[in-house]
């Protein structure tokens, strides 16, 4: 494993000594210093009064740690163009895992040179170290005594490279570092011959851990900033592009590139992120999901195209990366037969015949019973054009699932749903919202607290016996002011949305209590509802309920829960 490490100083390079100042417990300390100020003997952590006595002309500004952290995070995101595994290393570094990535840039030196050049263009002076371990890279980037901005530690020479560095390179807390120095252990190499037990006894386990991590004897995983994608494809441009048409073209080419890889693995993308890396170091993203695994480049590109207008290319985009974050198995499918029907689309569509179909094609046509090539698609679902049409019309088939993707990506994936009946007495639970693409969305019936299944409600067969339900249900129920006569009576008048309704007919009550077999019920009197179906003078029908029982101390409250047709 070779880990790069880059240390960037965010302060601008200026002629006059410059430092940022932070207020720490009432004292004003230097937070960061420019190279000129460092040359004059200033260092972070020094009191401002001392610094001014050294350098009277010191230019200062208030430090903004939150903005610095945000900028560092943006920088780490931007470094995603080199590798998907990046993370900010507060306060002044970015960690990039380049295992398996360097060859794409022509080697580690070339990658580092490219990074340095691009950082310089953004006004950032960077120090880059590439090493086998994170610890070694960290130490070399910050403490290596060299004029070059890039340190590349050859593989398997980590120990030699670390030996001359000061013990600060071990990422220990200052007290431990000071303790090591006090006993004369100033360089990392000084620790190599020391007996482990003595080090642990005196300085704690941290020293040994850090030493082992730096030398690669203990693993130190890098937790990436973002989720790492399953597959990603990159497109770099010779010149930065800004035209929306060019961006669309880039999306198309990336999608085409990605699907060939997905096809090889027999998967389809469910969640994709298209990232544009701008020349000014900013990153623009487009995320989208598909209702079912998709491997159609034109479909994916069309989904991105619809939202490309939200991308601000700024001064130009120099890189575009398309990453698939979630992939599901997608069986290879027959899209076309050469010489039949859709063959003019063949250039842009993927042609991967399923194995069975290849056999069909290779097998000699055995008289009238053999499948004719025109009906191969239909023959999966059944015979004849009728079943073929039905297969295409189902949710999940071509046209509709494409539509659901388009709707979901524009309006939000939660916006496209289906409603399903659910076995529950509680009206709000009787109709559940499920994602539009799921076929069997209902969870198994919940088990009771004692472990036995709850009594199943007979539904479906005796639909005629079920009490009528409103066509629109208000969630939450809307409170009304009602007047009624006897405790079990429906109201004869109620006021809802500042309008008075006089009730002419009423049915009820239908008592609905909490489902005792579910967990977390309140046992409150209010949980018992008496529902009435009422009709007003105009003939409008409402579903009212009374929460609570009269005589239980609190006066019952009335709500309207829905309207009937």
């Amino acid at each position: 494993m070779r880990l790069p490490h880059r240390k960037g100083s965010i302060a601008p390079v200026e002629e006059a000594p410059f430092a940022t100042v932070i207020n720490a417990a009432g004292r004003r300390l230097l937070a960061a210093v420019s190279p000129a100020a460092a040359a004059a003997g200033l260092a972070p952590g020094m009191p401002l009064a001392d610094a001014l006595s050294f350098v009277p002309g010191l230019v200062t500004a208030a430090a903004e740690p939150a903005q610095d952290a945000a900028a560092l995070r943006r920088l780490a995101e931007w470094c995603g163009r080199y590798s998907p595994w990046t993370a900010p290393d507060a306060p002044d570094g970015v960690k990039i895992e380049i295992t398996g990535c360097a060859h794409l840039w022509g080697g580690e030196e070339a990658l580092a040179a490219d990074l340095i050049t691009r950082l310089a263009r953004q006004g950032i002076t960077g120090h880059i170290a590439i090493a086998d371990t994170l610890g070694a890279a960290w130490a070399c980037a910050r403490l290596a005594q060299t004029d070059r901005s890039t340190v590349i530690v050859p593989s398997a020479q980590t120990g030699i490279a670390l030996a001359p560095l000061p013990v600060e390179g071990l990422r220990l807390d200052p007290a431990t570092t000071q303790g090591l120095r006090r006993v004369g252990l100033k360089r990392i190499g000084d620790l190599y011959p020391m007996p482990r037990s003595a080090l642990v006894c005196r300085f704690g386990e941290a020293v040994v851990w850090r030493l082992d991590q730096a030398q690669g004897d203990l693993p130190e995983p890098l937790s990436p900033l973002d989720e790492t994608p399953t597959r990603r494809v990159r497109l770099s441009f010779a010149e930065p592009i800004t035209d929306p048409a060019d961006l669309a073209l880039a999306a198309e080419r990336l999608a085409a590139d990605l699907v060939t890889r997905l096809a090889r693995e027999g998967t389809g993308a469910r969640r994709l992120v298209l990232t544009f890396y701008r020349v000014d170091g900013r990153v623009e993203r487009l995320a989208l999901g598909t209702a079912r695994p998709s491997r159609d480049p034109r479909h994916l590109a069309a989904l991105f195209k619809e939202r490309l207008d939200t991308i601000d290319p700024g001064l130009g985009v120099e890189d575009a990366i398309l990453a698939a974050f979630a992939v599901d198995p997608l069986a290879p499918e027959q899209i076309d037969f050469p010489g039949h029907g859709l063959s003019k689309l063949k250039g842009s569509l993927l042609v991967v015949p399923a194995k069975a179909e290849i056999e069909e094609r290779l097998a000699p046509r055995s008289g009238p019973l053999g499948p004719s090539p025109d009906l191969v698609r239909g023959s999966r679902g059944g015979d004849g054009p009728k079943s073929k049409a039905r297969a295409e019309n189902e949710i999940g088939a071509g046209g509709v699932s494409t539509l659901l993707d388009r709707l979901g990506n524009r309006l939000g994936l939660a916006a496209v749903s289906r409603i399903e009946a659910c076995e529950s007495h509680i009206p709000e639970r009787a109709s559940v919202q499920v994602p539009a693409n799921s076929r069997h969305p209902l969870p198994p019936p919940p088990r009771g607290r004692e472990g036995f299944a709850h009594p199943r409600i007979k539904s479906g067969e005796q639909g005629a016996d079920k009490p009528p339900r409103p066509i629109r249900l208000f969630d939450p129920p809307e409170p009304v002011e009602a007047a009624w006569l006897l405790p079990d009576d429906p109201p004869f008048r109620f006021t809802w949305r500042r309008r008075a309704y006089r009730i002419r007919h009423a049915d009820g009550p239908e008592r609905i209590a909490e489902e005792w077999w579910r967990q977390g019920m309140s046992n409150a009197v209010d949980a018992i509802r008496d529902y009435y179906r009422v009709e007003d003078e105009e003939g409008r029908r409402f579903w009212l309920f009374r929460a609570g029982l009269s005589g239980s101390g609190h006066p019952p409250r009335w709500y309207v829960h829905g309207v009937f047709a």
Partner: protein
Amino acid sequence: MSHDLSLTLREQVRRIERPIWAAHGVVPFGVAAIDSALPGGGLARGALHEILGAGGDEEDGALAAAFAASIVAGLASAEDGIVLWCLARLDLYEPGLAAHRLDPARLVMVRAARDTEILWAMEEGLHTLGVTAVVGEIGTLSDVASRRLQLAAEHSGATAFVLRRWRNGGQAARERALPNAAATRWRVAALSSQPIIAQFDAPIPPLPRGGEGWGEGMMPMTKRGGTPLTLPSPKGGRGFFLEPGIGHPRWRVELLRCRGGEPACWEVEIREGKMADATNSISLVGALADRPKAPVGSEAAASERIYRAG
């Protein structure tokens, strides 16, 4: 040459003059009176239809939704496609829709906050193969937007329904009369239901204690084993009684505008379970049927015993 040209032109003119229902056929209501008033004998497929509520229902859109649901249910099962229902607030209730025979498996709900997004979603749906009908609940429908929907529907053969749902009376008053390109415009209003005439062979059960305070309109019903036990009113007469609860829903269905047809008005009653014309769960009640006056509640009789909420 000129002969060919005139033939071509004649064909073009014929296509332009072709009535709207001829292109994609119609879906009949199954109610002879309504179907006979509509050109082509039913509601034209591949067209835009507008459905309005009335009174307070302009806000809730319950009747309009039920009317649309009963039509698209037939369409979806006949054509084996899905129905796209675009709305701003997800308040449709599955058991209520199922009562209108709309299979929830064929229904895809699209929630969008703005009218423009709903219109976009409807148009996308109309362009998609496999979508039989598109229903959108919209407040503001401009002339241009309605024409786009109408053209999309004409092109694909899918049927579009616009349910007008207004936030308040002010918006309703502004929007109600604006013209648009819909092929038909319907208004569905609720009517007072008629008491169900039930025949009882059993002896009349006694009135409950304190029965003098019960108005006709407030006759209580108790549930026993899931079947409503109705208490017949003593005013119903021997053998036949008016069931005191809610009767079957009754609607006044108005055809306000119809391309190639005349405005008309019907009264329909929805009877679940025993429909002669079961396709759309609408059966016509004779518009001239003798309707008894709606019973009057007698809250004055016991006004001193009013419990008030809150």
